[in-house]
């Protein structure tokens, strides 16, 4: 029997709690089962419109460079293996495996049937009111690997 005390400051550690991927997966699955497929897209639309509003603003100033920088930052945090091909009017992103899907599965959970909407719906909404569009070219359900294309919409 012992008595223990610990005090930690925010600056002592890096903010990186991978189990949040599992919680989001449960959230997506719960919405799907209880409110239907459309509710998953509606929720992600609402979330992306609000949360990514600074990114959406940045796209109108910097174009596709804003999206490139956003995902470079995310992938670096998540230690993801990726490849990007970038020009002023086109951005192709190839992700070798989704750190979210890999973590969910590694912890013995089933990935929600609609988890891919966290990629497709979210990116559609990020582009919705910008001069750019988005296309999910490939998605691998087993590890969440994907290939994305962002491109300038025809005038």
């Amino acid at each position, binding site marked *: *029997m*012992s*008595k*223990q*005390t*610990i*005090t*930690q*400051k*925010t*600056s*002592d*550690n*890096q*903010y*990186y*709690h*991978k*189990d*949040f*991927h*599992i*919680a*989001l997966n*449960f*959230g997506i699955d*719960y*919405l799907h089962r209880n*409110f239907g497929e459309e*509710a998953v897209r*509606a*929720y992600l639309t*609402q*979330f992306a419109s*609000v*949360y990514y*509003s*600074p990114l959406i603003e940045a796209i109108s100033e910097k174009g596709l460079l804003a999206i490139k920088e956003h*995902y470079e930052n*995310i992938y670096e*945090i*998540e230690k*993801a293996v990726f490849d990007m091909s970038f020009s002023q009017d086109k951005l192709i992103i190839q*992700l070798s495996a*989704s*750190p*979210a899907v890999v973590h969910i599965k590694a912890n013995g959970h089933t990935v929600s049937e609609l988890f891919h909407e*966290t*990629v497709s719906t*979210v990116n559609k909404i990020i582009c919705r009111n910008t001069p750019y569009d988005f296309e999910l070219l490939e998605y691998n359900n087993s590890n*969440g690997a*994907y290939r994305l294309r962002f491109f300038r919409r025809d005038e």
Partner: protein
Amino acid sequence: MISCTEFIPAYSELFKYIEQKGDKKAVVDFWNYLSDKFLTNLKDLVAINGIRGCWIYWSKTLEEEAADFTMELDEEAGEFSITMHHCPSKGKLVEYKHIEPYHDYCEHCDVLYRRVLEPLGLKYELDRSQTDQARCQLSVKLKKE
């Protein structure tokens, strides 16, 4: 891809969305579901280690969430507590200028953990009186026979 570092605003917006689709009870139903499915690790740790399981569970999660806290365990007295000086989740939601947090955001911590710990013979209390400043006090005590 939504990073795990972007989860908290996604979580808060999920509570809002569920309440729009249903009501507050629908949100609490979701918290109960999440507690049962997601907190199996806390349940297992406490089942095996007793109140020390709380110390083991929160040592990992609070470190990964880069929280500002003091955590205490007195196994002889059967007491565990967390004084959250700055909650990383609520703190982030308050910092974001473009996001309005779900009105009862911090209540999820009350519902999720109580549901796991009380059936295991522990008394769970959460003082949420200062959550507007991202502070709270969590206490777990062994129920006396």
